[in-house]
């Protein structure tokens, strides 16, 4: 088996292992705020796919630049937007019955 094929296979095994890991982790009792940590194995899987199957490092250099740009802008989108709900002052309103007609 060539080096390329071996690399692909090892990556596949790692991906399946990570998938099962996050599946298992989801049964652990984590508080609501920490549940998004379950995304960490998923991000590792995404990076593995990008490196191994999408050949991020051996492909055109410009491709790497665009990938990093996409992630940077995603971080801006997610980070700056969540800043508002996290810091909003919420004034309690008595609960309303759901509207009668829909």
């Amino acid at each position, binding site marked *: 088996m*060539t080096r*390329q*094929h071996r690399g*692909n*296979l090892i*990556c*596949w095994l790692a*991906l*399946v292992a990570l*998938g099962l890991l*996050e*599946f298992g*982790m*989801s049964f652990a*009792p*984590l508080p*609501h705020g920490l*549940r*998004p940590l*379950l*995304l960490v*194995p*998923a*991000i590792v*899987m*995404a990076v593995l*796919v*990008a490196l*191994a*199957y*999408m*050949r991020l490092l051996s*492909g*055109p250099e*410009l*491709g*790497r630049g*665009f*990938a990093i*740009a*996409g*992630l940077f*802008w*995603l971080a801006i*989108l*997610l980070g700056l*937007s*969540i800043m508002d*709900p*996290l810091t909003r002052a919420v004034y309690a309103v008595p*609960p309303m019955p*759901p509207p009668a007609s*829909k």
Partner: protein
Amino acid sequence: MSDEIAPHVHFQYADARHQSDTALAGMWLFLASEVLFFGGLIVAWMFCRHWQPDGFDAGARETVLWIGTINLILLVTSSFVYSTGVAFIEAGDVRRLVQCCLITACIGVLFLGLKFLEWYLDLSEHLFPAGPFKITGGEAGGARLFWSFYFVATGLHAVHMIVGIALVGWVAWQARHRTYSANWYTPVEAVGLYWSFVDIVWIVLYPVIYLVGRT
């Protein structure tokens, strides 16, 4: 550059390598735009989860975990198979490339089949966010928000899958007509980038949909 590659090179490019690298760079740039597209959806998920934590999780608990997990394994495997196909054409083996493409497409179709089954199960449980809804009471609002996110996200992902399957099928068809060789197989790589990206979207959507809310 040998003549056999010359027909593929368009007039505005210096040589085949120039064109090939350009095509792949173009696909990466397109994928960057797709990252922002799905990113907007994640913003909606974050906001809804923040404002309706109980209802949102109540909705998330109704997802069909086994289908989601099997689909994750399927897609990850399909990326592996397609990538193997690229490795084969790099070595000049067209026959194996065609086989890998067909297997990839079949896995994609299987994914969609399971997806449609899952939607059928969701709909028959009254989990579509409009109309009569399975969850009632105080958590209904948040649950409806979760299921709105669910249908939009999985719907958009399915559309991308359909496009991906069509592209993989096209690559297989081109390969059978002897278009590719060890010297030139750029469309194979470009489609592979797209397919792996659609895989990555599911890799991220899987915990977001099936795991995070499942307390």
